[in-house]
């Protein structure tokens, strides 16, 4: 297979994130999120990508590779390197994600149970003080989807609670968790605990 025959399309998700769609499966029917270079050890494609200056996060999912970069890195520059790395990987026989990466990761069902336990015992009793509730919506591979309700929905401090309370607790208790994604429709929150103002 010639590397030049592989078609890759880059689609910006935000200033810091770009999704690269490949014309063939990279990691068939599975996904894995790498949040650091260290986590990518022994996973050839992710390792290749983390070798590029400025890459901070990699999610490999079927025919897509979603990459986050630091503010210093420039997409036009690193985008070419990302394409080259993906093509080089596909030309090899290496797996996109090594079996070793999965060794410490519980199955989706086990991860669901463990995350739910953290929510039930650590998180929800505390956020209930502000009328809030955190629901586990789904676990796909090592990605966790949660929803914030009650006083947390639309709360001006929801981001702080998510990133520095919920994420922190889940990662400390459950090994191998990749992205923790908030799927809340915050705009529909009717009773947020904190409402922003310009005071």
């Amino acid at each position, binding site marked *: 297979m010639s590397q030049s025959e592989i078609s890759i399309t880059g689609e910006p998700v935000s200033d810091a994130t770009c999704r690269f769609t490949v014309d063939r499966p990279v990691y068939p029917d599975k996904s894995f999120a790498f949040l650091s270079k260290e986590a990518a050890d022994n996973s050839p494609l992710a390792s290749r990508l983390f070798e590029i200056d400025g890459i901070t996060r990699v999610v490999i999912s079927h025919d897509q590779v979603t990459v986050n970069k630091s503010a210093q890195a420039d997409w036009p520059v690193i985008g070419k390197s990302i394409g080259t790395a993906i093509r080089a990987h596909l030309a090899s026989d290496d797996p996109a994600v090594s079996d070793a990466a999965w060794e410490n990761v519980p199955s989706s069902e086990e991860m669901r149970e463990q995350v739910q336990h953290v929510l039930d015992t650590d998180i929800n009793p505390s956020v209930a003080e502000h009328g809030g509730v955190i629901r586990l919506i789904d676990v796909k591979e090592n990605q966790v989807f949660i929803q914030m309700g009650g006083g947390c929905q639309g709360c001006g401090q929801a981001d702080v609670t998510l990133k520095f309370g919920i994420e922190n*607790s889940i990662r400390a208790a459950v090994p191998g968790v990749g992205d923790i994604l908030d799927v809340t429709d915050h705009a529909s929150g009717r009773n947020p605990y904190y409402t922003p103002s310009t005071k």
Partner: protein
Amino acid sequence: MPRVLLLLPTTTYRTEAFVGAATRLGVDVTVVSEQPNTLARLNPAGLLTLDFKDSQKAAQRVVEFSTSHGIDAVVPVDSQVVVVAAAISAALGLRHNSIESVTAAHDKHLMRERFKQAGVPAPQSTLCSLDEDRAALAGQVDFPCVVKPLSLAASQGVIRADDESQFIRAVGRLQAILERQHGMPTASCSTSVSACADKRGRMSDSSSTSSRQFLVEQFVGGPEVALEGMLTRGELRVLALFDKPDPLDGPFFEETIYVTPSRLAAEKQKAIAQCAEQAARALGLTEGPIHAEVRLAKDGPSVIEVNSRSIGGLCSRMLRFETGMSLEELIIRHALEEDFELPERQSQATGVMMIPTARAGRLIEVHGLDEAKAVSGIEDVTISAHLGQRLVPLPEGSRYLGFIFARADSPEAVEAALRESHSKLKFVIEPTNDCTREGGRTSPAEESTGAV
């Protein structure tokens, strides 16, 4: 990995932008708020609670905290926390503005005094007290004038008066606003206590005096602009100059549309930047973001105010710099004393509209959101008020209904897109007795169109 102390008041609009920026930069973060996060016990290194009103005590607490978690930068996200941030930075020996400078920038009277001493062109003003005889005061005022609290933000409490009777009514209305602010526990840190911070950031008992003080300021006619800049060792770099195409002639001074790049002639833009730099120097500001409001009077620029903070609300979303860097990433990197060239703003014209609260009441429904988002050039429309929220317009209120963001080939196209998008929005607001401060009307739900 460096650790950044993010000072995030619980009611700031700036949480998402700063938390997102810190995450993208991959720095360790400790979030500091004035109220404990419900999950603080689960992450004591990441979530801290401080009394923002007592800068000295807060600084002492952070010094203790830093013995186990080293702090490399302190970033105040809005004007409520600039004084305490300066005190903490001073205690830790980090890059910072002096406490005196940020105190002056946070207090409109002190600011005017510094401007006067340094010869910065600015409206003439007089410090007055709510306890003075208003009829006598009115007799001494040159009209038109502007009655203004010392430290509220977003034009809250700012009222124009063209004659003595309007002046007396305006002062009465301002008194009610200030008393309400002091009566509300969540607002306690936003009053003018900073005016009373001493050189070490300690607050004195005179805060109760300053909360009864206000400025009577000469009204300066002409268009207004906003300048967003970054100070490094006292040198100003202009990040963006925004035109405000809607006239701000009163009686209230509602901010609506900001568009950059400015359509003013290059020489006028240069004069504005020089004026803002002179004003920052007069205050003693040397580091970090500034946000300046400048009027273009007949005889040249006149500085309304300079704040030691970045642009408020969600407005910073429209600013993007080379390599996609956000304003907040730039501010954090500057605070970390990273050695980097400040990047240029991406050149495409951009703008934001702060959706004004047209009337008091309870927000029942919002119509036309999809149509507003579909307007050519519109990037996003965010309704930040929640359904059921009690709305209070200026001069009593301090919240926006939401924000409209646009990007287009020219400033004219940006402005047109913002206006068209706004015209598609309809807010159903149910008047309530407690919200309609003047008149107390209780009629059935009314529809408020987006038009200003």
